[in-house]
């Protein structure tokens, strides 16, 4: 008996160690990518195009197409100016050119198809864009006159949402089911206007506002809507805040401040993959894209 015990004391740890050797490696909670020579340097806005991500790069003055799985650049194309907002619709990539103050159109190969809205286009500082395919409407945050502009697919201006409530708008997201529009706003502390996310209907009527003081954001940037929740990148916190779209209460967060994988420094936009629910975040200071597998799932 004693012998068995003695043998067991030796064999058991050996078996356990061997078992660990054959165990599959733990899945990585967060993956990082998009950073290699000639790759992303200053990613800003992000949008989906099938299996690819469209990312504007402010420093490289280019738009990158990244493979969602590998987070590697498939190709990129230059923009004459600083690109900000990006969207994909009808086989065209729309790019807000901050320098030229217009929205430009490119095909997925990167060929310039001209200015959105015709040869003259519209003078606009497109900080962010969101496309509602159902209503064929492109929603654009215009930093020049601090409004939200609605365009049809051809670039014709349909409507301008002007509101005294909008102070310093940054990002935009839509809830197509409810025909609601979310506009992130830095506010202006000197005017006692706190950071907010305004919720409008498509006609421009203010329905409610999500409070930054309550949810804990102060530099609200790009957003994405999924599962009745708003995913909001806060530039200062180094987090993506997930807010209940009705109450504005904080449901969970993605990331933390820092430069390690899974950490964020100046996150500027987020997109949720509709199928996998993976969350992709533009991580500006480290110059890369952060993927949070299943980050779009709610507890």
């Amino acid at each position: 008996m004693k012998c068995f015990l003695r043998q067991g004391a030796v064999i058991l740890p050996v078996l356990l160690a061997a078992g660990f050797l054959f165990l599959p490696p733990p899945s990585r909670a967060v993956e990082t990518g998009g950073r290699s020579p000639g790759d992303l340097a200053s990613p800003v806005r992000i949008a989906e195009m099938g299996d690819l991500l469209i990312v504007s790069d402010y420093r490289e003055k280019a738009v990158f197409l990244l493979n969602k799985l590998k987070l590697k650049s498939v190709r990129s194309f230059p923009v004459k100016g600083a690109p900000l907002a990006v969207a994909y619709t009808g086989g065209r990539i729309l790019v807000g050119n901050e320098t030229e103050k217009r929205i430009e159109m490119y095909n997925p190969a990167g060929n310039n198809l001209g200015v959105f809205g015709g040869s003259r286009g519209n003078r606009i500082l497109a900080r962010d864009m969101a496309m509602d395919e159902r209503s064929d409407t492109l929603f654009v945050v215009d930093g020049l006159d601090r409004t939200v502009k609605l365009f049809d697919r051809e670039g014709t201006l349909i409507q301008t949402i002007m509101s005294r409530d909008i102070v310093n708008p940054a990002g935009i997201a839509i809830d197509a089911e409810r025909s609601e529009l979310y506009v992130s706003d830095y506010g202006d502390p000197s005017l006692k206007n706190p950071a907010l996310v305004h919720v409008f209907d498509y006609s421009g009527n203010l329905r409610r506002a999500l409070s930054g003081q309550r949810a804990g954001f102060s530099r609200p940037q790009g957003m994405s809507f999924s599962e009745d929740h708003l995913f909001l990148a806060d530039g200062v916190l180094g987090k993506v805040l997930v807010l209940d779209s009705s109450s504005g209460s904080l449901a969970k967060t993605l990331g933390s401040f820092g430069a390690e994988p899974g950490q964020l420094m100046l996150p500027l936009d987020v997109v949720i993959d509709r199928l996998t629910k993976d969350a992709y975040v533009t991580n500006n200071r480290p110059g890369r894209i952060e993927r949070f597998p299943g980050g779009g799932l709610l507890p």
Partner: protein
Amino acid sequence: MKRCLILIAVVAAAMISPGSAKALIAAHQCNYCHAVHGAAGSALLNDTQAETLCMSCHGPAGISTLKAEVHLNDRNSVYPAFRITCRTCHDPHDNGGNWLGGSNIRLTGSRQDATGYARITTPNSGVREVVFESRGSTAGMPTLHSFADADEDANGYYDGVCETCHTLTKFHRNSAAGSHNHNTGDTCVRCHLHASNFVK
């Protein structure tokens, strides 16, 4: 109530202590950066660092019209890569007085000792004076005490905001060495944009 009083005392102490904010410019009111209630980090800041805080307004997609980026060297440079970030050249709290008796613009330099003069801790020349009172002649301004004035006041000290650091550049170093004739009378950032890492 007790916590509020302690907080007020802390803020008041910070305002009157040496090295702290004295005269905030209009665009940098306290609560733009500091959260008086509920800040997660130190100095009434949330858990972040200065560059991220600055870039959240002045960087890509930020709301400020004054766009800026950190200072990097050119990709084709023969020298090792460097990264000069905001606080090296700027004091977000006020425009400091300089050693020549004037007042700097664009929050340039910071008080680093009891003299209170605006100075910059340079990469390889130690702590140096910085004088930046004019953006140069392209805006109809005097070149004296601009980005790099080639020691126009002939005091033997190259203290412009660009030249006070530079020791390896071809032009406008912080000494008499090299050439000081490169585009004199022009504004450095017309070509070397702050928003483009000061790289041409």
